């Protein structure tokens, strides 16, 4: 495998790992208002977070099983759809996760602002 392809594959793996946790926070945040599967996917996409249907729909069911979401079948535009929204437990969980997210972000910013880090320069110069 050429070095460039290997780097791309590695980047893709790491990117997926990084997004996995973020995606849950994003879904919980988006479901503060009621959505059904397809509209939720569109909403996330509009905010720059493209998600496969094969990933999103099973995730919704898992979060519901864990008690973070609630769902109900309701008719809309003459068709029955399953609408999801955040449960009380999900709301609390989102608060904790956002606090954790901000803490991680703050730590990362602190590390990147260290003067001797070449990476900080690269990030600051956008390279």
């Amino acid at each position, binding site marked *: 495998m050429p070095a460039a392809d290997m780097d791309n594959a590695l980047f893709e793996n790491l990117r997926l790992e990084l997004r996995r946790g973020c995606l849950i926070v994003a879904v919980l945040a988006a479901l503060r208002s009621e959505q*059904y*599967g*397809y509209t939720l*996917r*569109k909403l996330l996409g509009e905010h720059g977070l493209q998600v*496969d249907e094969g990933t999103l729909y099973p995730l919704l*069911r898992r979060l519901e099983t864990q008690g973070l979401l609630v769902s109900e079948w309701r008719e809309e535009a003459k*068709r*029955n759809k399953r609408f999801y929204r955040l449960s009380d437990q999900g709301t609390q969980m989102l608060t904790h996760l956002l606090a954790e997210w901000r803490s991680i972000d703050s730590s990362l910013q602190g590390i990147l602002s260290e003067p001797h880090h070449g990476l900080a320069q690269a990030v600051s110069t956008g390279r």
Partner: protein
Amino acid sequence: MDLLKRYLQAVKFFLPRGQQEDIIRELSENLISQFEDREEALGRPLTEDEQADILRAHGHPMLVAGRYRSRQQLIGPVFFPIYLIALQAGLAIALIVTLVEGALTAAIQARAFDHVIQHIVATLLRYPGRALMVFGWTTLCFAALDLAQAHVRFTHAWDPRKLPELRIDEAGHSRMHSLFEVIFIWAGIVWLLLVPRMPFLILGPAAAFLDAAPIWRTIYVPILLLAVGSAGIALFTFIRPHWTPARSYARVAVNVGGLIVMVMVARAGEWFLPAVPAPASAPHNLTGLIDLINIGVQVGLAVAVFINVAEIARELMRLKRGRHNALMHAALLALPMLVGAPFLAVAASEPAPAPPVAAARVEYRMLATNKTSTMQAEMQDAADSGFQFGGVMGGETSFGGSEVVVIMTRLATSKPRYQYKLLATNKTSTMQREMQEAGNAGFEYRGQTVFKSTFGGKEVVTILERDRDAPKPPRYEYRLLATKKTSTLEKELQEAGAEGFVFVGVTVAETAIGGSEIVAITRRPVGQ
């Protein structure tokens, strides 16, 4: 929409049964919404190709359905590394067990070298099945463990002070090296087990005209035990590749045992003897060749002792670096010495004195036949039951006509230790040569008579005996004196006596060539 229904049907097939309807209903609504959105954007109904593109992007039915399953992997990341180690160890142990089984089967059942190969190959062919079984059971066990993982919690209730001691060998012992060590030692054990029945494995083509000295029989079991000990250490090293004091102690014990065995072997003085009877293929300079082989063994022993001592020193240095308790150190080192002491005592002592004859019951066996070969076989049978040659007489019996009668005796406590050889000829020179060959092989003159055989006329028959338990049987040079005149015999005996020959037996023989002769047998010790 036909394409969508077919897609949903395919997804449904792979979904968990209890959730099929619910998931398909939701998936269907989401996909229809996506189709409608796309149609709205295009301002027309979707073509079949466009529907296929959307479904393709949604994912293969099997993968899509798979993501709805609560269990995504058989063994999760927590147990997977331990699973891999357990699987490797299990496969290696199965391999070792298979090799040992093959070796033992070959050693017990094989009758020839070809059979050894057949047994080993047949056993090795069982390995793939065993490996599959190990793989299956290990995977099943770990899958069950992973399933119960929710209830298993690794807590902080562990004590770092109970972790293994710091390893002294930074590099450790390569597992591959240990595996080869295990395989080679077990191969050595198989070889050892086969050697008694297949002497060519140690002597090669020379097995046809060489016999191993009795010392090898004495030290055979100790050598086998030491080899099994070494195999055990190698197996332990394979399982725990890093140095431990226990391994050094075990190595020292085995090496000390090896040293004791080597001392015993060295004390024997000679290690190979000419085969009896000497085959036609025996080289003319057999005695010289045996001397050469024995010198080779002596040099080999010296090298082996040196290596053994160096190994002991190396392990002691390791233990010293490890700063282990000196008292424990001394006690553990004394243990193999104590175990080995009886062997040393046996090696150093003379053969045990026979129990008092008067105190034990004496049994007799009388053998009578008119064929020399039958007599030799019958004598050997009796000897194998613990009997020893008592006396011989040739003559006319009331039952068998012209026969040779041998009387053998046995004490109740006697164990088999003697081998017998009968030499029969009507030529004095042939008899002298054959006696000399047997004498070189450790046989000793015990008696003689005249045998009137069916075909060979009158023959002189000499009975020779070899003590299998004697560490170093005495060697003699034989001289037979045959003459028709007593005065000549006296003169010849005087001459032989002047050269150190001692008279051991006499008979009157009516030989085919020389007519009636007196045959006197004399001998003198050599290399004593």
